[in-house]
């Protein structure tokens, strides 16, 4: 009972942290679209070597481990960049570095799936190309879950705040409830989306007339 009360007290604090997770995931998703879609076009380019090079690039990006990339971005990217048209140097926030790292995974997904969709579209199979949408949402879900890794480079998101709560209350026996509680946040966010994706996919697949497992 007392544990539940403690969890309730800290809920706003934890929710704010989860806001960072969502922000990171959305940013990564958008960056992924912005770079993944053009890459997909290049992968389907008529010029042979352009297609070859872009397919290689997509493959390499696909094989980069996200967790290591988070450290890479956090360590290598400067804390500030000065842009010629701005007076003050622009601060590169830690959460943005993580979003950049996670976007690699997204670029990999998007370029691969979108190039398949593109081929379907060019072959006149519009319905099949629509399958890209559930694919993208699935990728986004994986990114949302991976956003928890931001805690290891000190971004003050949900998992990191869990550790703060445990340290602040000084109760080690709070550890299991807090971590379980935090995992429910992810579950509550991802489950409805995943369910909707499942429905969408079944419906789209029925239209395509093929329900090949993906």
């Amino acid at each position, binding site marked *: 009972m007392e544990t539940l009360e403690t969890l309730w007290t800290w809920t706003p604090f934890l929710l704010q942290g989860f806001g960072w997770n969502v922000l990171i995931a959305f940013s990564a998703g958008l960056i992924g679209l912005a770079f993944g879609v053009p890459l997909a076009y290049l992968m389907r380019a008529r010029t042979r070597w352009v297609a070859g090079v872009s397919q290689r690039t997509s493959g*390499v990006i*696909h*094989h*980069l*481990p*996200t*967790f*290591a*990339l988070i*450290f*890479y971005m*956090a*360590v*290598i990217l400067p*804390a500030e960049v000065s842009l010629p048209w701005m007076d003050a140097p622009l601060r590169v926030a*830690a959460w943005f570095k993580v979003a950049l790292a996670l976007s690699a995974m997204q670029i990999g997904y998007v370029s691969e799936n979108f190039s398949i969709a593109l081929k379907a579209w060019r072959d006149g199979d519009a319905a099949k190309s629509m399958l890209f949408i559930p694919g993208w949402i699935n990728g986004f*879900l994986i990114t949302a*879950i*991976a956003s*928890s*890794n931001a*805690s*290891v*480079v*000190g*971004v*003050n998101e949900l*998992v*990191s705040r*869990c550790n703060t709560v445990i*340290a602040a209350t*000084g109760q*080690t*026996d709070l*550890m*299991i409830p807090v*971590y*379980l509680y*935090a*995992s429910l946040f*992810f*579950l509550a966010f*991802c*489950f409805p989306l*995943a369910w909707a994706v499942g429905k969408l996919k079944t419906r789209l697949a029925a239209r395509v007339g093929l*329900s*090949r*497992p*993906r």
Partner: protein
Amino acid sequence: MTGRKWFLRCGFWLMFLACAGVGATPSPTLQAIEKSGVIRIGVKSDFPPFGMLDGEGQPKGMEIDLARDVARRLNVSASLVKVTTENRLQRLEQGAVDLVIATTADTIERRRIATAIEPPYYAGGVTVMMRENQRIQDWAGLRGKTVCATQGAYYNRPMAERFLLDLVIYRDTRDALLGLRDGRCVGYLYTQSAIHAFLAKEEWKGYAAPLPLAMVSQWALFVSRAEKGTAYERAIGDIVAEWHRSGFLKEREAAWGLPPSPFLNQTQAQWLAQDKAGHWVCSRTPEGEWPTACRNTALLTSAEATGLQNIGLLIKERTGIDLSFVYDPFDRARFFKGLAITVVMMAACVLASLAWGMAWALLVDGRVRWLSALARLAAVYARMTPPLLQMYLLFFGVGGVLFASLGWSLYPMAVAIGCMSCYTGAAIMNSLVEAARHRRLSNPSFRLKTGTLMQAALLAKGPIMGSLINVMKQTVMASAIGVPELLLVSLAIMADQGNVNVMMNVLLVAYLALITAAAALLAWLQAWVTRRHQGVH
């Protein structure tokens, strides 16, 4: 001193000097010292407890003790000369002092203007002073945290880069300490010796410096540039080696109230090590040098090394790319151990994920009433919560309870493999069950059983391969609970050596190569299994 004792001692020192002289050129400095009976030693007077002044203005401190011991062992008297950080090496070059013992860190730059005596006699570094009970035991615990620091300190930037600290810079020590007291930061980043002096004061009760030293620099005695390779350099080097072996340095350290430093322990163990024949491992080579294994490889030049070490140092000198895991035996050992652990983790995760996924799929599609429903629910949880959180929950949460109640401790590697294969196993299960559903479109009685599992697996081979590649990429996450895999060792190496960019790029390339190779291997295996299976049917 009795005559006999005096005689013995004289004999010992004659032998000692004779031995030290092997392979060395004669030294004018040593001759002058012997002739005058005085050695002039530069020491500091403003760096407690190493070199300071007592109530009567006389020098005292740990380094003063060392200076006196050098003179005693050379059988001459010591003349102590006050030097400062700015002029200490200049005084050597001018010939105003014969030896400098003044908290001087041994660096490649300094070796160009003076001769560093090997082995080093002490190691300084930076640490963080913070309130007790902060639950921060290592540098990783400070990532992203606000830390106070003083303007102009050379270590601010590298520390912020290597450990991802968020530094607030104060004008001076006083302001930074106030910042710490008022809670504007979790700790104060400063040199260990100074922090040690603060902690000794009453006003900083309840504060501690629990983190290991970072930016460790080894302190060396220095003689002039011209003395490189002379009998004098050898004699002083032998004295320092003897200080380590006899425990004199550790004893003096304790006498001056310094905390026991791991550096002195490690160096003593290294210099006391003997080979099978009972000789010191660290003894002079016929050329009069210490063996490379007993020297600080980061300070060697390629001319002083052979083999791999030579190649690594050459690359460093020519290109500035510091591949310390090539030329430094310690870094090399830990880097390849990390690589091996990563490979083992990848293989274990792939196998465990496949096993989990298949067993889970059999359970879910087997329709064992509530058990199948439960398995389905468990899979949803496993797939939609971060593996990092699952690892923390199991390792710190459950692991803590197990340790408190039963005294068992969990293996971090087993926990990591378990959690990651659980997450991936759930995804594989999903693909298998979906494949089974697809099969049912043409064959309504199709069920996942041990006999039919392979059909479903071949149908879902694309997504399953994707999941397996993902789990191999995820093994990096094991570093979060302290599994010393490639990322963790690379972070440790770059923290010690400062080769941040190089290590990060090496790390990424290493992972890329590993995963690309593993993916090719998996694809080949998959093709082989497919062929065999089709051959059977």
